[in-house]
């Protein structure tokens, strides 16, 4: 157990981070069918802005969190209008649009590196660095914060998407764009909003993971890839899938590193992703429609 519990804590903490990133991927995908490859860089921007505001400027945590999420949400909305919408209007293929999001991610990365700085910044946890001891095991307060905020975000998005008019509009847009337009829904803004919400949630993931190590302009790619892998494992466009995919990836990584060997950790996590894709191309919870929509 001395071995199992710490691995479990590591797995669930980073599983939650992957859940948030997968959720961000899914929110954007479900409204627009676009896989937003700038997501990893949004995580990075979130980590950097929050460490500047909270660790360096000592602003209140709640303010830091909201401000960071809003700024990155705006970056997401800008992404839609700069990189995605112009291509959609030209009836560009989905592949071109996805490549454009990749371009936007490089712009983000270089802007941060050159404008804000290339060095690694330390981030601090609002709950402090001293581990809490529960039953003889050390748990970082930040891990608890990660799990707590992930649950809150999941509940919040579930509520908005299933119980509000806005959520209904988003789902209508995802279901049938032209139909939604005819119903008087401003489809453009709904999609832009989803890019924003995706950015905001990705920023939260960045804010939460930075205190475990550091924030630098180069951390985005890894989290983009792992967040995307979690999305794929769970199934594109499926929210339950985000949860299962994120946790599966977090645990796989931690346990494979611990029990099989460190050189296998990431490899095994990604091999499992491939296996799932071979057996169920639409992911564990993905529906066939999503797959077809993706092919259009």
């Amino acid at each position, binding site marked *: 157990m001395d*071995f199992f519990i*710490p*691995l479990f*804590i*590591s797995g669930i*903490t*980073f599983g939650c981070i992957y859940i948030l990133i997968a959720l961000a991927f899914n929110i954007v995908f479900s409204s627009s069918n676009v896989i937003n490859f700038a997501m990893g860089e949004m995580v990075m921007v979130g980590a950097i802005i929050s460490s500047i505001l909270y660790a360096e400027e000592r602003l209140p945590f709640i303010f830091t969190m909201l401000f960071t999420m809003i700024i990155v949400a705006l970056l997401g909305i800008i992404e839609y209008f700069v*990189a995605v919408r*112009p*291509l959609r209007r*030209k*009836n*560009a293929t989905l592949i*071109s649009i996805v490549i*454009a999001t990749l*371009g936007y991610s*490089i*712009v983000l990365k*270089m*802007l941060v*590196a*050159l*404008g804000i700085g*290339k*060095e*690694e*910044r*330390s981030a601090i946890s609002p709950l402090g660095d001293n*581990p809490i001891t529960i039953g003889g095991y*050390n748990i*970082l307060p930040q891990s608890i914060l990660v799990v707590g905020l992930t649950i809150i975000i999941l509940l919040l998005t579930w509520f908005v998407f299933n119980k509000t008019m806005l959520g209904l509009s988003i789902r209508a847009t995802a279901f049938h764009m032209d139909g939604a337009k005819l119903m008087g829904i401003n489809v453009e803004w709904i999609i832009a909003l989803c890019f924003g919400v995706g950015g905001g949630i990705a920023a939260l993931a960045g804010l939460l*993971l*930075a205190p*475990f*190590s*550091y924030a*630098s302009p*180069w*951390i985005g*790619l*890894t989290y983009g890839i792992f967040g995307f892998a979690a999305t794929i494992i769970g199934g594109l466009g499926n929210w339950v899938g985000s949860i299962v995919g994120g946790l599966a990836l977090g645990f796989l990584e*931690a*346990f494979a*590193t*611990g029990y099989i060997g*460190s*050189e296998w*950790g*990431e490899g095994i996590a990604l091999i499992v992703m491939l296996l799932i894709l071979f057996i169920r191309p639409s992911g564990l919870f993905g529906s066939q429609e999503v797959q077809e929509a993706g092919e259009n």
Partner: protein
Amino acid sequence: MKSKMNLVFVALLVLMIIMSGCGGTSQESGKASDSSSQNVAGKETGGDEDEFVIGLSGALTGGSSALGQPQLHAVQLAIEEINNSGGINGAKIRLISEDDQANPTKGVTIAQKFVTKDNVDAFIGPTNSSVALAMAPVFEKAQVPAIMAIPTNDDVTKGKKWIFQIDATSKTQAEFFASYVAKKKMKVGIIHDTTSWGEANKKFAIEELKKLGIEPVAVESLTVGKNDYTPQLLNLKKAGAEILVAGLLGPEAAVVSKNAKQINYTVPIVGPNALAQSSLIELGKKDVEGMVFTSIVDPEKPEFKKFQESFNKKFGYIPETDWAPLGYDAVYILKKAFEVAGHDKEKIREALENLNNYVGVSGKAGSTISFKPDDHTGLKADAVGFLTVKNGRFVKYSEK
């Protein structure tokens, strides 16, 4: 339709280029990206005036920029000093710097540009061994002398006529900390990153420990840039490692120390000079106090102290670790060669090969840099010492 789409892509690309250009000049490190424009201006007016051109490449952005930036600054400082004191027999040195982002492919492109378009007299850089290994054949083929000051991989100069190294190689460093570990009589664990540099460190650490009759109880690897290395540390703890040899760069070593503390695993950590980056202290804070690493700077050496002073005056920060002094020495070693050989590259190479007992700012007090026709590595075991972290600063390590 399609052509319009292409237009958007081109526009996007142009935008990216402009943005990266603008960002560079507004920054304190802007000189790096400026140099290319200076270069163009220099080309137009040059020609009638004799000048020596040095090409420099290094990781000026990216994770290894903590090595590349100080080296660039030190090279700029040395060139300024030389030019202000009469240059090389009256001729000035001009620097062209490029950012290889620690990317071997970019490195090769830059090397080719230096030897064909810029026609440099000599080359300094890069910062990373993987890039050095990729660039070396270009300079060999073009017959341009290259001083690869920072890379430590032992293969960089092996069998090469035109390539020179200054930093103590990975093997030399491993020898040094292996003997330190052996004296401790503790069970040894190894943790390293999966870059080619990290793998080489692991290999040499295992080899050198073996020579001293020590078998590591566990060897763990990690991917650069992840936020949690608890699983690896749990394995090392389970295997009973009492001291860790770390083939890591600064930021990862900081995270490892932090994670170790979280699982109540407090063991000494030793490793090569690449651990000694300012980021180690900034990120690791209290957790990295007492970490020990090899280093080719000697905080008490007068030449090094003087260098730190003039560096601080120009750039506003004090270089405490190995990277800046290595770049600085590379320029002065080239100066010596230029003075006797002029622009004749073969003669520059010969002059470098005959460099004997050069006292640089790098290296432990009393050590010197020499090259021989069959040995192009500069600093040897006698130049290596230990640094440690004390009260948030890099200081000389002394055994209590």
